[in-house]
């Protein structure tokens, strides 16, 4: 049960910034800057951070939907960046992604049956005769009915479309799924349906999730471990319980205290961060967080803190910790 299914080592993804008549590269947006993590079978790793911190890019680079700049991604021991195109294509069914936007993630010109079934045929999991049964099976698992099969995506509400997206992934029986903000675009009353569905499916099929979200409450509910990203780097990663009760990095602390609690009787000490998130094209030197950190010292401006284990598999990158 405890084997590692995915291992990411020092992954980097820099997007070039081009300017001028000749489109010369004048700089880089460091969307993913030296990220290492591991994911075990049947485990959910939550990845939280604010917009522009590179969490979605991380998810997509891990799946090689966009090419890396540097680093390694091992899926079941194989470095997916060393695979040839055709080998990668054959491996695809094992690692899937659920998208944020239930509107643009389904092809508007295909029926639900075709959307779910086409990859099954392409990978020869099913043929033309058996595909309908398979589609029906996953539709039912995702809380949709058989008569939905002949319909087109525009006839569904956001929550149902997200179920279709999940059914498409589920049909391939993947081992690892990147969930890229799967509930952020949904209404509150629908969010919990989808979260519950994801949890149920994980229990049934032992999926490993990389659950990307900006919503700390949802991440807390669904994850076993949680990583916090800031400007392309992981600043803290630990067991869920550990990170929510004993956050070490000042950014994690601020993030947690900023989440509004739906209970007017809870009185909390807020620790509101000053200022804005710096642009990832021009991140601060030293510790990237030092411009907003309440505890900034000289060393924070000068040196990048090391991302290290401070015991109990609690990783953190901060000069205040473990000195």
């Amino acid at each position, binding site marked *: 049960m405890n084997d590692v299914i995915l291992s990411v080592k020092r992954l980097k993804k820099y997007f070039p910034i081009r300017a001028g008549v000749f489109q010369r590269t004048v700089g880089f947006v460091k969307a993913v800057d030296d990220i290492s993590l591991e994911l075990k079978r049947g485990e959910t790793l939550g990845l939280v951070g604010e917009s522009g911190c590179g969490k979605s890019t991380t998810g997509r680079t891990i799946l090689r939907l966009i090419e890396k700049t540097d680093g390694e991604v091992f899926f079941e021991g194989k470095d997916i960046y060393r695979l040839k195109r055709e080998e990668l294509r054959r491996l695809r069914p094992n690692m899937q992604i659920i998208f944020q936007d239930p509107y643009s993630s389904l092809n508007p010109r295909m029926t639900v049956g075709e959307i779910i079934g086409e990859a099954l045929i392409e990978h020869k999991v099913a043929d033309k005769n058996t595909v309908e049964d398979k589609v029906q099976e996953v539709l039912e698992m995702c809380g949709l009915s058989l008569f939905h099969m002949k319909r087109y995506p525009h006839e569904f509400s956001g929550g149902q479309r997200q179920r279709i997206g999940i059914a498409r992934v589920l049909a391939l029986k993947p081992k690892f799924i990147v969930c890229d903000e799967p509930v952020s675009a949904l209404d*509150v*009353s629908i969010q919990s349906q989808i979260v519950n569905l994801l949890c149920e499916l994980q229990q049934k099929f032992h999926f490993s999730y990389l659950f990307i979200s900006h919503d*700390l409450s949802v991440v807390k509910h669904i994850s076993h471990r949680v990583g916090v990203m800031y400007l392309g780097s992981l600043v803290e990663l630990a067991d869920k319980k550990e990170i929510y009760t004993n956050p070490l990095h000042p950014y994690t602390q601020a993030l947690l205290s900023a*989440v509004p609690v*739906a*209970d*007017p*009787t809870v009185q909390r000490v807020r620790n509101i961060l000053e200022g804005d*998130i710096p642009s990832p094209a021009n991140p601060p030197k030293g510790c990237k967080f030092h411009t907003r950190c309440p505890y900034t010292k000289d060393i924070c401006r000068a040196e990048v803190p090391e991302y290290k284990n401070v015991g109990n598999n609690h990783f953190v990158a901060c000069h205040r910790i473990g000195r």
Partner: protein
Amino acid sequence: MEKLLEIKNLKTYFYTDEGIVKAVDDVSLKINKGETMCIVGESGCGKSITAMSILRLIPNPPGRIEGGEIVFEGRDLLKLSEEEVRSIRGNEISMIFQEPMTSLNPVFTIGNQIIEAIMLHQNLSKKAAVEKAVEVLKLVGIPRADEIINAYPHELSGGMRQRVMIAMAMVCNPKLLIADEPTTALDVTIQAQILDLMRKLKEDTKTSIMLITHDLGVVAEMADYISVMYSGKIVEEAKVLELFKNPLHPYTSGLLASKPQIHIDKEKLYAIPGQVPSSFDLPKGCYFYPRCERAMDICEQCAPKLKQIHDGHYVACHLYGGEENE
């Protein structure tokens, strides 16, 4: 407490090719002076349309306000001339929107837009208007206000732009500030800053706030009084503590139970079954009936009326006395 704004039986309908959408269907609510009133609901429940109806900003066609009254300090806004409404907009009632980028004009500097608002509504010289603009920008916590005043909207971050929007809204000391999902497009840490700012402004200026949101967390932190909307109707309203402690309508309690909480661990989330109904195809009777776990026969037949259960707590549900329905 003194009433500032009272909406009575407001009906705003949209006439589309597919049929009539009753976006706001017989909604009544009131906002007291110095109070924050929250309207909570999911997308398409009519909360934004209610707010836009107050300022008569409904695009016509396809939309039309079909009935009701909106009484603001003794005057019915729906009976005023276009001219009179314009003098109220931005002056006595102002509004901030979800997406600050689209509500700022990209070709003018921040300063230009604020100064224009000041000069439009207050008889101030250009110089005095500039001073006032810098002053409000400082008030909303913008650093280097005298430089930022010459910046264009795209040079600012989302949080900064929302602060500018708030500055523009507050510049004429409105009596009512309508905030339509002001923090939805922002990150949590920035959201905390903006909410904090709004709370501070409310205390300093005694402005009433009508806050429209889908986030129960934001509601719990900001609201004095809450109205819950579902499919164009108000299903429950109460004071904030009362509503969170003792939600009566199955939809409200469902919403509260389905939200994962950062300070409580739950084994499994409660989920309201089914989908939000389409506005073209609303069920007969109670709109929530198809999704309600406590539905009764009567719910399918006739729509419940909003009635007071106990002091200041109103609910529209047959579970709480269905006798006087016609």
